[in-house]
């Protein structure tokens, strides 16, 4: 049996310039999908309620926020039922939260794979992102159903909804890549991220509207790039007031830069992963 003339691969000491393995990631797309599929299957295997948890989580979260922020604190929800208002917020927020949490853990959780076989390292965080997208699709369906029940018909701006979600995914993915690489050396990152995500949830317009934030916090609030993107999503879906141009620009710019920086940061540290993990 003769085999076709194979290509030549040269291995050299890594250069100082980070080399993102995007071509290799594309070649490994099968692995990315298989790993994502594994994550999804594992999450619901041997659970009685199965995929129902994806639906129940946002519903309960939205209900709690509606009672606390809408009922007890009596905040405004821009003319939309408070429950629907927070459900839209949670749907977009979950993209950020679960992407950051899962990508951060992706290398350490697959430590055996990192230290023993060659899988393009980017495949691990990227597959974690793919798995979140599946959850996202389910919760978007849920949001659509709830909107229909409440009789909220979105305007043409709903077509922009996927754009906001993509920007949020990119922003969170970029942050997740940096944290995943850092966690290879410092396991503390895992605990820090869980805390950080909880804090940022309340520093972002998820359970309340950005308009409810007192003016003296304005500057501080504008630092959070999530504000423009989360409000943008709610505007697209529910027709609430659009975010200000400044916050919008800050959000979009950060969301475009974050994945690039994340990939470069990740590539810079990638050669040492197997030795450190």
């Amino acid at each position, binding site marked *: 049996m003769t085999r076709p003339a*194979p290509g030549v691969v040269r291995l050299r000491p890594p250069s100082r310039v980070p080399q993102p393995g995007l071509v290799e990631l594309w070649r490994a797309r099968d692995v990315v999908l298989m790993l994502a599929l594994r994550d999804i299957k594992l999450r619901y295997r041997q659970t009685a309620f199965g995929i129902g948890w994806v639906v129940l989580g946002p519903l309960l979260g939205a209900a709690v926020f509606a009672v606390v922020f809408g009922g007890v604190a009596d905040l405004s929800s821009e003319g939309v039922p408070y429950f629907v208002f927070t459900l839209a917020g949670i749907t977009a927020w979950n993209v950020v939260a679960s992407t950051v949490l899962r990508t951060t853990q992706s290398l350490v959780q697959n430590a055996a794979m990192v230290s023993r076989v060659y899988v393009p390292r980017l495949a691990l965080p990227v597959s974690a992102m793919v798995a979140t997208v599946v959850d996202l699709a389910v919760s978007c369906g849920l949001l659509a159903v709830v909107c229909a029940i409440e009789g909220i018909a979105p305007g043409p701006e709903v077509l922009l909804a996927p754009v906001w979600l993509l920007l949020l995914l990119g922003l969170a993915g970029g942050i997740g890549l940096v944290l995943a690489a850092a966690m290879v050396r410092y396991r503390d990152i895992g605990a820090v991220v869980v805390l950080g995500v909880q804090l940022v949830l309340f520093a972002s317009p998820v359970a309340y509207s950005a308009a409810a934030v007192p003016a003296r916090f304005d500057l501080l609030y504008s630092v959070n790039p999530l504000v423009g993107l989360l409000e943008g999503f709610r505007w697209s879906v529910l027709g609430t007031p659009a975010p200000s141009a400044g916050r919008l620009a800050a959000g979009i710019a950060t969301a475009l830069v974050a994945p690039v920086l994340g990939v470069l940061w990740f590539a810079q540290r990638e050669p040492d992963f197997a030795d450190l993990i």
Partner: protein
Amino acid sequence: MADAPVIRAVGVGKSYRTGLTASGLREAFGTRVSRSGRPTARTAFEALRDVSFEVPSGQILGVIGPNGAGKSTLLKILTRVTRLDRGEVELRGSVGSLLEVGTGFHPELTGRENVYLNGGVLGMRRREITRKLDEIVAFAEVEEFLDTPVKRYSTGMAVRLAFAVAAHLDADILLVDEVLAVGDARFQERCVTKLESLAADGGRTVLFVSHNMAPIRRMCDRVLVLVDGSLTFDGSPAEAVRAYFGGPGDREGSGRWDLLERRNPYPPHGIVLERLVITGPDHTLPTAALEAGAPAALDIHLSGFDQVGRGIVGVRFSTDAGLSVATMVSRSLRTAGRSGREVVRMALPSLPLAPGRYSIDLSVMSAETGQPVDGVTAAGTVEVWSAGMGRDAWAALHGDGAVVIDVEWSTRPIDAPASTGDG
């Protein structure tokens, strides 16, 4: 260029910065780090230095060496798991690795799901796996359990499935690390056969790292010996094994082991096992490579004999699978000199062990009280080989037992009266 080497390594080197490493690495070369106490700041440890070699297509190349010699680091560099710091490697063709069989196996997933995942991780496309699924499952003999979660598999089944996936990789270069240490003898035999046919019929190049000299001697066309990160020998398997085991110095394979540092928890009085030296037929040069059927001797160096008076020495051979093969116990011995230091020799006129790896446990008892006074488990390790036997006869023997019993075979017709054998 048909004659271009498939693997070309030039001056390959790699260092670990031990001060920065996590516990896993520290453990990997534990002695080095602990010798200088706690690892300070950034000390570089050279795992590989200036390693150069070329491998032509279709060759099975073995790599042997003591623990921590850099064998696994070399494979990890070739598979691109870890980076190299110096030199260059050229690989002609796709690389598949059986570095850790079953990496990516998840207990909650079914056999089928794990085959896909593991195959993907090892570099197979989804379509390719689908095409080979039946073949893989048949090789692993897990047909009925394909849709059962792997957590319900026996260890043997999981290992077989994992090896089967890796063995069906369509890679030009296969890197194999110690996979044959798992599974039962029959399965190991099939793994060896599979690797041999991949090289012979498939034109694959196999780089094979092992501690076990049996498959090395059987499969490899050529063997590299790595010691302390440097390439010390490159040549035929038989010579390499001899070079490795007969080499000078006090390390694994030298045939000389200092036991004082490895004493057991017995109270420090009475007879102390100081050293074990093993020699072959000439009884002069220490060696840990012994020939089956040839003379050999174990010299056990003891001190403190004068305090106990009379001592009894015990020697046990065990296979590397942990099976005790035989225990020899001396008669009551007494010291001849005044120093209390003694060498007790256990001579074997004809070593009755089958080719393989054996570890030797030593113990000493007081002849007066019958109490153990010293003992060292795995005091030394020997590799038994047999040059006279053909490869296959050798392997069959190895698979079936640890002891060679001297027997005579004969035949006679059933209806004839019993008489002496007629051959």
